[in-house]
């Protein structure tokens, strides 16, 4: 779960979408090919403001094709609480789009979700990579799919500070070398938002997926191997090569005081303190909102430096699930799974679809297109590990995984102690699940 949600700004995209709205599809998209006049469907998701407006455009298309009436409810970051309250009250929304895979699992286990129908299943098999289907599957039944994905393997840099002839590092060694060279020149190249634990867990997940491999990653996410496993230590130490105090403005103590948004402003603000910041694609949103830099010109990204030889991407995303067993619900879910539905939001910007059929040309700018391309083409996409963990371990401020990463950033020499503490917490947290 992300404590932080940025509404990606898409100035050009709005104009583009305006032009595109006139071009009606030749045939009705899947799910929208039935007549649902007079029926109502209720959808709940976290999106508000710009994102809500974009999503409502998607829903408008469904309404236009089927005659159904769709109500959108924005639950904001409190969506899990909203859902659990409404489930207890016996009046859940028909469709929910949740950011926490752990929540999908627990709702499925409680019997609150309705499995996707065969037609939707076939559509997802056809248009999504196999990994994406796996994530929506609980105990062999397909309950959902990721509608809006995040690429959490992007490293953003300031083109002005790094100069015209800057070449992004090809691998981790080159990345560490780059940091060293820049700091030798008296700079502090790397901005780390260590006050927010989730930025640090994203660092670790990217490194671990590559040093340990996808299978070990899955095992660690399920706690089938302990945190004291040697592969964890190796990943931590690999990460430690970049987490050197001389690379970070103000050293370790300052990094631990820097929140995510500040870590971006420290690179792209008017008075930059660093040159490079790592996080997900929503960094672009912070740049647009909080600095005068322009994404695509002043701010560019390179994929997280590779360590092995498979291309890996850490992702997150919002999963569509059905909570009622009605034809209108099933139709809307199927429609949302289709590339046609995704394409509507893709054009408006601030949206990445994991659907392979969505044309990359549809993305409003080069940067977004490359982010989407990296995500769709990655050989080893994996869901954000902290999102797969019990929330008490993977998403609690100042505790669990977040805290362990902060402790490591503060003092790498304590690594064995940190990992054994984390293992004890993990054992307790998974036992409660």
């Amino acid at each position, binding site marked *: 779960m992300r404590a932080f949600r940025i509404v990606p700004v898409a100035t050009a995209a709005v104009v583009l979408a305006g032009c595109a709205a006139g071009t009606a599809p030749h045939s009705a998209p899947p799910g929208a090919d039935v007549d649902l006049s007079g029926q109502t469907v209720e959808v709940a998701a976290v999106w508000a403001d710009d994102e809500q407006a974009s999503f409502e455009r998607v829903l408008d298309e469904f309404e236009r094709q089927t005659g159904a009436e769709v109500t959108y409810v924005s639950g904001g970051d409190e969506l899990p609480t909203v859902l659990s309250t409404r489930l207890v009250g016996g009046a859940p929304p028909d469709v929910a789009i949740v950011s926490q895979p752990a929540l999908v699992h627990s709702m499925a286990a409680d019997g609150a979700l309705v499995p996707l129908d065969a037609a939707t299943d076939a559509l997802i098999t056809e248009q999504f990579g196999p990994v994406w289907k796996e994530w929506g599957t609980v105990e062999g039944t397909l309950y959902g799919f990721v509608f809006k994905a995040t690429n959490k393997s992007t490293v953003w840099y300031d083109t002005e500070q790094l100069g015209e002839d800057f070449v992004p590092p090809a691998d981790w060694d080159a990345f560490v070398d780059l940091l060293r060279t820049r700091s030798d020149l008296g700079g502090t190249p790397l901005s780390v938002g260590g006050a927010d634990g989730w930025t640090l867990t994203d660092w670790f997940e990217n490194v671990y997926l590559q040093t340990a491999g996808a299978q070990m990653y899955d095992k660690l996410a399920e706690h089938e191997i302990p945190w004291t496993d040697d592969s964890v230590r190796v990943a931590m130490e690999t990460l430690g090569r970049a987490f050197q105090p001389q690379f970070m403005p103000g050293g370790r103590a300052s990094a631990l005081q820097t929140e995510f948004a500040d870590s971006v402003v420290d690179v792209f603000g008017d008075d930059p303190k660093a040159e490079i910041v790592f996080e997900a694609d929503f960094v672009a949103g912070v740049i647009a909102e909080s600095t005068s830099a322009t994404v695509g010109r002043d701010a560019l990204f390179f994929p997280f430096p590779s360590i092995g030889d498979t291309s890996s991407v850490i992702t997150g995303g919002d999963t569509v699930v059905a909570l009622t067993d009605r034809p209108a619900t099933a139709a809307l879910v199927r429609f949302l799974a289709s590339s046609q539905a995704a394409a509507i939001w893709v054009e408006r910007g601030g949206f990445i679809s994991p659907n392979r059929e969505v044309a990359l040309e549809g993305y409003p700018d080069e940067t977004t297109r490359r982010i989407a391309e990296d995500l769709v083409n990655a050989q080893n996409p994996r869901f954000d590990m902290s999102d797969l963990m019990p929330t008490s371990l993977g998403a609690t401020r*100042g505790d669990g995984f977040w805290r362990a990463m902060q402790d490591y950033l503060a003092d790498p020499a304590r690594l064995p102690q940190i990992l054994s503490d984390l293992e004890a917490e993990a054992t307790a947290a998974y036992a*409660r699940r």
Partner: protein
Amino acid sequence: MPTPPAPPPSASSALETGRRTGALAGGSPRIALLFLTPALLLMLVFLVYPTAYSLVRSLFDARGDEFVGLGNYATAFSDDRTLVALRNNVIWVVVAPTLVTSIGLVLAVLIEKVRWATAFRLVMFMPLAISLVASGIVFRLVYDEDPDRGLVNAVAVSVHDSFAHASPFPGVRPREGGGLVAAPDGSMVTTAQIGRDAVLALPLTGYDPADLPPRTSAAVPAEPGAGVRGLIWLDVGGADDRPGRLDAGERGMPGVAVEVLADDRVVATVTTGDDGRFTAPDLAPGSYALRLPASNFAEPFRGLTWLGPALITPVIISAWLWVMAGFAMTLIAAGLAAIPRDAQEAARVDGATEWQVFRRVTVPLLSPVLVVVLVTLVINVLKVFDLVFVIAPGSAQEEANVLALQMWQVSFGSGGGDQGLGSALAVLLFLLVGPAMLFNVRRFKAERS
């Protein structure tokens, strides 16, 4: 409509009151019930039921369908976070209300004597009108570590810098494998012992060559000769930039102090020239080490890490103090207005100093008010939540934790929560507030009789 003056309390009037109530109670209990019902109903729905339900809920597991007895309480007390929260609550209760009451008292007494008393009171009271979350955000900024953002560190840095000189080459560090290592105190020492006429080349890095002083010239290797001779140069910015090698275009580091040590004792101190060379002549035979003292390279002072694990609780208490001082002051000022002036005047006439009047007359007369303020603040402090949540960054949240925050984190924080454990913490908090409430209720009763 003017209120009629209250009759002076006397035995006869008390008796009268008693008779009157008695008559009413005996006369029509049904009417009494009618008037009581709305209040009772509200209390039942909004106070009694939630309290009772929390108590019951605390005996069940996270999902709420399995009875676990006192299991949640056991979990709470075996969790470090709860213990830290409990410890912090104790610190809060002991320190914060006392501090705020004392400051409120001093302010109330002092402001009474100034001319624009009402204006001052208004200003002091204003923070209370700001929501705690907003105050928290303000103080999060005030205490920010970055002197460009945080007010406190900006002041600290400018005061510090007007007394202490900045080092010539802040942030410089030895090139790895170049013959120097950084010591824990910030100085650099040679890795190997050297003879009395050694020739050294010591590369440094971590500094922008463009920032070297204009007088700096190209680095020149030291010639062998009498005494320890060497070159200290900036190993970046050359044509090739080979680490640890002197490349064309690389320049010396001028004005770096170099100490020659024999058995940890400084036997000579020299300074490098514009080309980075130094010579320490006339050394007795023996083995030596070189040290470049920390004063060459010390990073500029950046203030304190206020929001780090060590200082976080005092910092949040100071924010709470800013908010609540006006509240304490206003209540105490009201009390002050009500105490009989003649006692103070009499003391002054008898030759008491202002301090003696304050200490021996004003404070004792005010003590009932002070106790009420203190107890109210204790109750208020136990539920402190927003300030801690907003001010403490994630990396110090565990150290700043308090019970109310822990309760929320456990039950609702970040989505799926354990409301059984959360209820247990709520009950715990209730038990802690209990004595203070009881004390207040007793006081009110005592005052009425």
